[in-house]
């Protein structure tokens, strides 16, 4: 896999505060990467540096192996709350954006129109952006970020300000862009990250605390367990006293943590059958991203 972007010990210091501290990662061509972390973790600052808006205090960004290149030539950027000149129409703005990224007048106009239709603003081409709703602004923001067909798309919380329907639609648009572009997007909504991610970058207090493919990260933080539901709370207690393994009881449920493949599901079922208790449900659970997130975010 070719590396398209490399951040090497990226650091941004404001006064005495390290907003981003020694962050190192690489983006492979054609991959999608989610930058996740709690609010104030440094996600926007990191994206701003990659987008050429902010100069890193130390560290370098290389694009296609070239250090200190003007990254702005190869990226599309969508800020969290994109602001538009209220007196321009959607088409005028997108056209201007395309031209400023080096497209000639003819193809700028053509692509602007096509892109606006693609994001679902086909009916609002000639409407002034000042009249746009939040959802329309987000779509226009996406349109201006992709109109010039950049290699790398940087998106800051692309869907978090949207309602569930709008979020779904934008996620689908982004998924359809995955084939053509390398995408790096920040989010604190983990379902979105789970849906469209080759690589996860966890930021916490300016530091990259975890990274890797979603499978790797899950394997590392996952603590598989069995969860058994009984008909009555007493049964859960009785089972916890009799079972050959440690059972944590919570109401009518018991949780059995696995240690190195033991016990197996068969062992658990067998013990339950032999106990003669009123068992309602037994299942194997793996950690979802939310739990991993909480674990990573909560690390000391």
């Amino acid at each position, binding site marked *: 896999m070719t590396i398209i972007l490399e951040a090497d010990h990226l650091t941004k210091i404001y006064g005495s505060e390290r907003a981003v501290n020694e962050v190192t990662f690489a983006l492979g061509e054609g991959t999608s990467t989610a930058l996740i972390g709690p609010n104030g973790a440094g996600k*926007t600052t990191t994206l701003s540096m990659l987008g050429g808006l902010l100069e890193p205090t130390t560290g370098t960004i290389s694009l296609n192996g070239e250090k200190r290149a003007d990254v702005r030539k190869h990226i599309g950027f969508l800020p*969290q709350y994109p602001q538009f000149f209220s007196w321009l129409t959607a088409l005028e703005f997108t056209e201007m954006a395309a031209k400023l990224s080096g497209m000639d007048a003819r193809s700028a106009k053509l692509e602007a129109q096509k892109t606006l239709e693609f994001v679902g603003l086909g009916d609002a081409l000639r409407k002034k952006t000042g009249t746009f709703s939040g959802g329309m602004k987000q779509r226009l*923001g996406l349109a201006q970020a992709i109109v010039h067909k950049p290699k790398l798309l940087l998106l800051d919380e692309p869907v978090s300000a949207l309602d569930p329907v709008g979020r779904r639609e934008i996620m689908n648009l982004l998924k359809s862009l995955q084939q053509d572009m390398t995408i790096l997007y920040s989010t604190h909504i983990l379902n979105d990250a789970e849906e469209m991610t080759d690589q996860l970058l966890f930021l916490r207090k300016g530091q990259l605390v975890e990274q890797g493919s979603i499978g790797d990260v899950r394997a590392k933080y996952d603590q598989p367990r069995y969860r058994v539901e009984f008909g009555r709370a007493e049964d859960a207690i009785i089972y916890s006293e009799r079972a050959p393994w440690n059972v944590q009881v919570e109401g009518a449920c018991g949780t059995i943590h696995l240690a190195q493949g033991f016990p197996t599901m068969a062992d658990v079922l067998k013990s339950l059958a032999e106990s003669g208790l009123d068992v309602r449900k037994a299942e194997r659970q793996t950690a979802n991203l939310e739990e991993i997130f909480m674990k990573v975010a909560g690390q000391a």
Partner: protein
Amino acid sequence: MRELVVLFQKEWRENTRNFKILWVPLVFIFFGLSEPLTSYYLPQILDAVGNMPEGTTFPMPEFTPAQVIMATMGQYQFIGMLVLVLAFMGTISRERKNGTGTLIYVRPISYLNYFLSKWKVVGMIALMSVWLGLLTSWYYTGLLFGKVEASDFFAFAGTYSVWILFVVTIVLAMSAWLPTGGAAGLSLLLILIVQIVDSLLGTYWTISPWKISTYATQWLTGSPDSGDFWWSIAITILAIIALMIFGVWMSKRNASKTKV
């Protein structure tokens, strides 16, 4: 070059759609009209508003045509400057404040073109306004008070244009450097207050951008001292270039302060 054209077009659209292209010139034309008119009708106006005892006569000053045009410029030097500063103080700073600049700054633009596109459009509007106003004043002065030679008038208006460009460059450079409020304050300080200081203490020196307007008026009655005049023009042009370089540098440095 193409990039400059695109940015210029954006600025032009902005200033037509917010009507600055219309109302700023109208304000200058208004004062170009009202100054000769009020000077001419001053006796009647005083008569109409004052409760003068019957038969009171005032020794009315007789205005020369040159004095009327100078008075128009006097209005521009205060009200006109105020209008220019207030109309254009946010040209760059507002784009950072409200975040509209962000989507421009993440494109591969050069900040030289960014600043230049704004300087050109604002400079054009300011010069157009001042010229339309002064031409109106010249015409009315000719009608009501007497002739001012075309060569004298054009030397005057041409010289005054250098001052106007200096003012425009100050406003844009300050807007690139500071938030809108600070840009307005410092621009007014540099344009109005320094002007007063220069006229109070300025007998000690003769070469200064703040003396350009005085030298401009001297064309109406004769001609300014050639050495002082040309040195002041040269210094002012150098100051304009220096302010532009500063403005470009500040636009770039402050791009990171845009709201994201």
